[in-house]
């Protein structure tokens, strides 16, 4: 009797294991975590719009109809690395999240990068700018989708130096992102024969820039490089107009400017600014169609920013890779390898590829902000002035310090 019960117990256990084995091979459940700044200075360029973009990517993938179960949860990292990593840990340990998307704010993004590598999850970063994510701090679990500081420096920065802006003063946000953008832009400026005459580091989320602007004005630099983002950039540009900086002959280089920033500054003040993005809602019929669906679901009817577009495209590509794998192996490195092996193609960024260091390569576009008289609608802000192909815009693999390339 005793022997029989042990035998049946063993049999049951064996059957359970077998069943589990079959289940993991065909496991079609996915949990996506959209981690962003949900209420602070980056909330409009990522935030709830990024969660919406992820939802739309899931809907458009058609996987749910094929029997997949895909859940999305969202979290607010409040621009604090400790909060960001705590959420990421909880998501992997308790909520069994497979992939974390968006994560604007380079400081938080780099911290979360380590957690995801440790937990062997998948990281599709769209919101953060630092080029370190695919360079010195690259990870086999990470794909950096939309843009980075190297690209911004080699497009906007380079164009300005070549147009005669050979002396620069930096207004830099005092954290990982500002430091990376200043570093990458400085390299471009000096390589092209320009020089850096000074700079000032300001705390993140500064309401008043007048002290810093006066210092920039006194430096007599031809170009004032804004190595900041979101609300900091809009405040700087608005207050620079007040202090007559542009009228005085100095030029502002908005190294990173988003659609929502232009809206906040207003065309009257923002007109004529040159900057680079990899996505604009009004590029072609496909982007317009997507943006129409997107803004219909946004509370303030805003079209997608490039960060939100990057979340959509990144999640689409991730789901394509899972479909090609025939199920979710819950193995971050394996999934990211699959993603890298497939060329990227979607309605928003067109054709591209993911390099071995995790960097997604696609076109970058130089834009100029329209004059108020040229704008035909509430979000009609940009004029395309140039296109830079992906291999020109992003870090060449020969220059990348990523350890993954040494294999």
């Amino acid at each position, binding site marked *: 009797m005793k022997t029989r019960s042990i035998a049946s117990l063993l049999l049951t256990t064996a059957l359970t294991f077998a069943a589990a084995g079959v289940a993991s091979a065909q496991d079609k459940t996915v949990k996506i975590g959209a981690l962003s700044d949900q*209420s602070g200075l980056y909330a409009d360029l990522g935030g709830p719009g990024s969660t919406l973009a992820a939802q739309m990517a899931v809907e458009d993938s058609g996987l749910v109809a094929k029997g997949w179960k895909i859940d999305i949860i969202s979290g607010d990292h409040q621009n604090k690395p400790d909060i960001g990593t705590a959420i990421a840990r909880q998501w992997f340990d308790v909520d069994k999240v497979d992939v974390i998307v968006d994560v604007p704010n380079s400081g938080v993004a780099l911290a979360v990068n380590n957690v995801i590598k440790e937990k062997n999850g998948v990281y599709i970063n769209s919101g953060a700018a630092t080029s370190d994510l695919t360079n010195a701090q690259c990870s086999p679990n990470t794909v950096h989708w939309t843009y980075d500081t190297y690209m911004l420096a080699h497009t906007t920065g380079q164009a300005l130096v070549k147009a005669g802006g050979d002396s620069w003063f930096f207004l830099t946000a005092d954290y990982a992102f500002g430091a990376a953008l200043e570093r990458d832009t400085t390299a471009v400026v000096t390589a092209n024969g320009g020089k850096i005459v000074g700079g000032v*580091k300001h705390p993140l989320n500064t309401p*008043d820039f*007048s002290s*810093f602007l006066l210092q920039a004005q*006194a430096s007599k630099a031809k170009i004032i490089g804004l190595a900041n983002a979101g609300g900091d950039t809009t405040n700087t540009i608005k*207050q620079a107009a007040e202090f*007559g900086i542009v009228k005085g002959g100095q030029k502002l280089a908005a190294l990173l400017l988003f659609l*929502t920033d232009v809206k906040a500054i207003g065309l009257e003040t923002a007109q004529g600014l040159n900057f680079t993005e990899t996505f604009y809602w009004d590029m072609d019929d496909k982007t317009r169609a997507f943006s129409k669906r997107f803004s219909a679901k946004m509370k303030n009817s805003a079209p997608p920013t490039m960060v939100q577009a990057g979340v959509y495209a990144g999640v689409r590509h991730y789901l394509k890779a899972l479909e090609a794998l025939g199920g979710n192996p819950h193995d971050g490195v394996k999934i990211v390898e699959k993603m890298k092996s497939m060329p990227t193609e979607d309605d928003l960024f067109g054709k591209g590829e993911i390099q071995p260091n995790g960097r997604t390569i696609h076109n970058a576009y130089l834009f100029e902000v329209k004059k108020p008289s040229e704008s035909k609608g509430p979000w009609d802000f940009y004029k395309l002035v140039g296109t830079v192909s992906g291999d020109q815009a992003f870090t060449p693999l020969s220059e990348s310090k990523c350890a993954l390339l040494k294999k």
Partner: protein
Amino acid sequence: MQALYAQLLVGLINGSFYALLSLGLAVIFGMLNIINFAHGALYMMGAFVAYFLLNLGGINYWWALLLAPIIVGIFGMILERTMLQWLTGLDHLYGLLLTFGIALIVQGVFQNYFGSSGLPYAIPDQLKGGMNLGFMFLPIYRGWVVVFSLVVCLATWFLIEKTQLGAYLRAATENPTLVRAFGINVPRMITLTYGLGVGLAALAGVLSAPINQVRPLMGADLIIVVFAVVVIGGMGSIMGSIITGFALGVIEGLTKYFYPEASNTVVFVLMVLVLLVKPTGLTGRAA
């Protein structure tokens, strides 16, 4: 040296906002004994009302300077009548929690509808441009902010410290029962005082709308600094909060010049120092 003058002036401009806001807080704390954490949200509402007046009603900046404080002031008085008045006599903590909750709700509602990156509000035509002072280019609007807020601050101080009405108010805080015995409607006076404090916040909001973005969180970012100003100046002291407001603006401006990385912490370092040496604040009296 020239750069230093410029930084002093810029500091004075920021000090104007600190002074206006901390003045409102001081009035409310001094007269109602409430730590009004909703002050930042009400400041933000002032800026939004100015934005709505301009974009929906075509009402310009000058009228907004008058109307926004009244509209937000009425909102404040409704808050006082419906909620705050029930907290009379309770521990400070209750007022703090209630107003903090109100601030979160108001900010949340605005953020839900307007996002976080803000709306543009242009400088009125009459105050556009700037003048070259030799050591700096002073935008006329900024000069206006300093002068106007200084006038408003002094007028408020005069009203409370030097007039008959102010005397009733101060008496009502000391001993409400006795003042009531003289036939004065104390609850109504308290409500009006709260309205005045809130109106000052809204006025600061209108003044800042053309300089900063009109953003739901514009007050949340500022209010913590303003509380530090009030604590340094001495809770409830009218003149103390005006002077500390301007002085801290200048100190912060100088920090931005000499060591910018510390510019958002210098106020709190000062607060710690003042509390260690003189716990009632610079001009405060022991309770």
